[in-house]
């Protein structure tokens, strides 16, 4: 059995014999995902593992009353590639919880996956399916900021803890919720990391170019705040935007080319970023490029050699030397034959800390969990982290890296060129705009 087949959400429903209307469904266990063969790229079609059609799978593995975790993952749609990485992280973490940690409160841990399709409406709908049909104790996941926000809002309505993955400031800012926690960096943490380092190392003249939608606008906003917060000299030569999905950057590239800018802040992701990088290479752009997204492997795979030499804030680096990272890398590589990604990291940190909070509280009751998580300090793969009480944002060190020529893989690698302290990169509680509502 391929590991990835286990977590196909619909497989679960099918095996449970439940109709589309979701009368019932059962869990999947990471415990049987010990195969480790296959590249886990999720190209299985999710059908065809015809064993155990009786709806009682995992009876040997799952206790009567497992702790139920609802994963929200874009399995289809434009974030599907990221979704696959997330699924691998989910499997790895469930495996760790059941096999190494020994479950939560002596109960097994069961995971359910629903497909957000990268769409906020669908994401909210699937969160609802998790809560109403899968009866989960905790929600985690979603890639796009929009989906994160819509799920966070729903989770608060239902009083279910939610570990967000997306970066938007509002998640732990103006839209903060007592039920929402974020081990992922916020956009402002990323901006403060990158802005300070770039002004010190690349020059003070910056050209900002972003995609004209929530993500790009947030980058532009946060980096400008971060420039200001850095107390360094800076000069924004110009700021330009192109619509989401714009595919030709010749006009803006020719303007940057002939400007006095030292470096460009590139504020988009996905294929837009790939286009921008490959076209800037064709134009022979002399300016340095700084981004927040080039650290993502799918992007490095897509942009290939045109990403090499650009700078990026780094969310995760498998070779970073800590004990916690070694555990994560070893297990993930064993299960999936490839190193973990940022997606795995965030799920790993979130759920292990959730488990720790539940053990400390002696229950998975939401209020108790929140109480334990607030202020929790831990050693994470990328260094120490503190879950801040005022906005539920994890405080972590910030990293800046440079994209390098491919070494051990087909795609370009990255090296860490700068490291900033957690206090330095996290905005003070007073600036967050978070007024924590009641549960």
């Amino acid at each position: 059995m391929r590991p990835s087949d286990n977590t196909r959400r619909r497989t679960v429903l099918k095996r449970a014999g439940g109709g589309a209307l979701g009368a019932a469904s059962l869990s999947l266990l990471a415990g049987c995902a010990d195969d480790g063969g296959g590249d886990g790229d999720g190209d299985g079609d999710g059908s065809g593992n015809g064993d155990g059609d009786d709806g009682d799978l995992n009876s040997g593995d799952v206790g009567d009353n497992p702790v139920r975790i609802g994963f929200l993952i874009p399995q289809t749609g434009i974030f599907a590639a990221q979704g696959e990485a997330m699924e691998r992280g989910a499997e790895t973490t469930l495996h760790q919880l059941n096999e190494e940690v020994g479950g939560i409160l002596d109960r097994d841990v069961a995971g359910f996956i629903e497909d957000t399709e990268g769409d906020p409406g669908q994401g909210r709908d699937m969160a609802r399916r998790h809560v109403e049909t899968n009866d989960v104790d905790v929600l985690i996941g979603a890639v796009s900021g929009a989906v994160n926000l819509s799920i966070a809002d729903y989770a608060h309505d239902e009083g279910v803890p939610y570990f967000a993955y997306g970066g938007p400031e509002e998640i732990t800012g103006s839209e903060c919720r007592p039920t929402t926690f974020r081990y992922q960096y916020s956009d402002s943490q990323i901006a403060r990391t990158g802005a300070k380092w770039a002004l010190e190392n690349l020059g003070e003249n910056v050209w900002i170019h972003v995609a004209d939608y929530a993500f790009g606008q947030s980058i532009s906003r946060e980096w400008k705040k971060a420039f200001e917060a850095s107390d360094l000299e800076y000069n924004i030569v110009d700021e330009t935007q192109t619509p989401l999905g714009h595919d030709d950057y010749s006009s803006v590239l020719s303007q940057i080319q002939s400007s006095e800018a030292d470096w460009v802040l590139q504020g988009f992701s996905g294929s837009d970023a790939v286009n921008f990088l490959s076209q800037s290479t064709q134009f022979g752009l002399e300016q340095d490029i700084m981004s927040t997204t080039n650290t993502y492997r799918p992007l490095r795979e897509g942009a290939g050699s045109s990403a090499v030499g650009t700078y990026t804030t780094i969310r995760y680096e498998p070779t970073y030397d800590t004990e916690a990272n070694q555990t994560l890398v070893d297990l993930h590589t064993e299960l999936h034959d490839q190193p973990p990604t940022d997606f795995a990291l965030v799920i790993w940190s979130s759920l292990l800390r959730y488990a720790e909070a539940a053990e400390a509280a002696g229950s998975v009751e939401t209020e108790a969990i929140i109480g334990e998580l607030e202020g929790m300090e831990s050693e994470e793969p990328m260094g120490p982290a503190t879950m801040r009480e005022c906005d539920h944002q994890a405080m972590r060190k910030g990293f800046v890296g440079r994209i390098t020529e491919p070494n051990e893989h087909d795609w370009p690698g990255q090296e860490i060129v700068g490291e900033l302290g957690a206090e330095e990169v996290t905005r003070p509680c007073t600036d967050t705009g978070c007024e924590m509502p009641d549960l």
Partner: protein
Amino acid sequence: MIASQSLPLLAFISVEQAAFLLLNGLALGVLYVLIAAGFAVIFGITDVLNFAHGAFYMVGAYLTLAVVDATGSFFVALIVGPIAVAGIGVVAERLTLSNIYDRSPLYHVLITFGVLLIVTELVEIVWGTGTQFFQTPELLAGAVQVGPIAYPKYRLFTILAGAVIALGTWLLIRYSRFGLILRAGAQDQATARLMGVNIKKYYTLTFALGTFLAAIAGGLASPFLSVNPEMGNGALIIAFVVVAIGGLGSFAGAVVAGLLVGFTQAAVDTFVPALSGFVFYILLLAALLIKPEGILGDYEIRKHAAKLSYDERIPPVPLTDRRVLALLGALLLLPVVGLNTVMSSYGVGLVALMFIWGILALSLDTVTGYTGLISFGHAAFYGVGSYVVALTTLNVTNSFLLSMGAAILVAASIAWLVGAISARLSGLYFAIITFAIGQLLYQMSVSWSGLTGGSNGLSIDRVELLGFVDVSDTVTFYYLALAMLVASYYVAKRIMDSPFGLQLQAIRESERRTTFLGYNTNMAKRRIFAVSGALGGVAGGLFVTLQTFTSPETLFWVVSGDALFAMVLGGVGTLYGPIIGGAVLIGLDQILTIYFDHWRMLLGLILIVIVLFAPRGLVSFYAIGAELLRGERGPFGSAEPEPVEERGD
């Protein structure tokens, strides 16, 4: 702000800027010409709006990439890849379009939409959803000095290659025997047949040429526009806009319009970047208002090409029909009996979603099924309805009655305007314009994040019916949606039974004749469009009430495609069929995703099968089934010769 710093006055731009502008515009323009050329060729000759054009463009990029990987030569790949795609195009055409050229363009649109779904999913299965890296060929990497500026070699190559391909195509159509026959066939099929030409064979060849051009555009674009499964969407929009501006079916028009759009885009990107996402739509609307037939459009859509007609008339079922009453009774009882026994409240919500899609498909049927206007932009009304309810609830009042009233009003007004702009145009232009307007609104909803929340969408808390009934409660909502569905159906049926409704059907059958009987058909079209928009707005308003959330996805053109699919799946032109279709589509969505990640491929297959073998959709199965039961029809669907005595009167 940025724009005001560099006003588009030529006097103020430097030589370098001018040179960049010229080359950027030319490179873009040539690419647009290439993308649109294949689309224009296919349309000009077969009258088919090929919605799969973008998909073939995308496959072209992937196959070119695959051949590069295999052979290492970009130039070989640029020929071999597109030829392979042309092969795929031929197979697709033979299996689908080839059988239905004589049918209404509605079916052409749908069947190519089906091909698009299948091709896209196949690509995702083979290559995954991520963006692929396409290395710029060594020879063309980097920049070269052109006059005062350094310009990418690859772009210069694109300009050259594009020009050569466009010229070659023009020469082929203009001077070869193949071209002669194609043009003759396009003018008059009967004459072409007299010339002893197997017109179908040439249609297939046309399709091969069209997909080849799409694919070579894809291959040529991939080193600077990334390769991913989404890339076809943009290309499809470009093809639509360029061809509509240039004049439907005019190859020369496509060339002129492509260059025009390219230069405008480059200039707007430089001087007014805030508008750069709207260039296509602004140009298109301007062209429509100034010269609706397009720059070089002396082409008139042939009558048969625009008409939607049915072999069999299936009248709408009255609400008082016993079967309808029984179904309504069952639906009324469903939440009472079913909740917490056979279904969760999620399930109840799902059935309510079926009602919503029933209303959406019904709204489309009034315009498309009854009036014969193919709207590929009903997402516009759906999305607008959802946004108006969301915005009213957030900013004004959480009274459902008021926000829904506002949604109906706004959606109807927009629809009326769309009707007013496009009513002069018939048939396929209508599909293109409605598509473009839908996409324009989509673009606006993404960009104007101050109002719409941008791609984050808008969340609302709860909506109340009269200040106290909470309609966000799933079961309450269920009954509300059911009531709205019944009311919508009643209104639609009433309209279709009226003198105005008869007028609409007359327009569908022959707009020319309707005009010559003294009717103001444009007014009728505007009115029914407003009615249809209002119903679409109802569906959208209900959707946001159910989900307590809306996002630009509600305005995306795929929603329009799905609505058309639902309409035809159930039974176009029957009012009740589309409702069934909407419900079944939602059901299929839920069930197929359980078993199959790439469920949209199955939807594509179902769509093609329906179009080919059951053009009147599911309601015709009911009729066939009933006849079978009564023994009036042979077991294999074909009617047996009827006994003589049953004929007579």
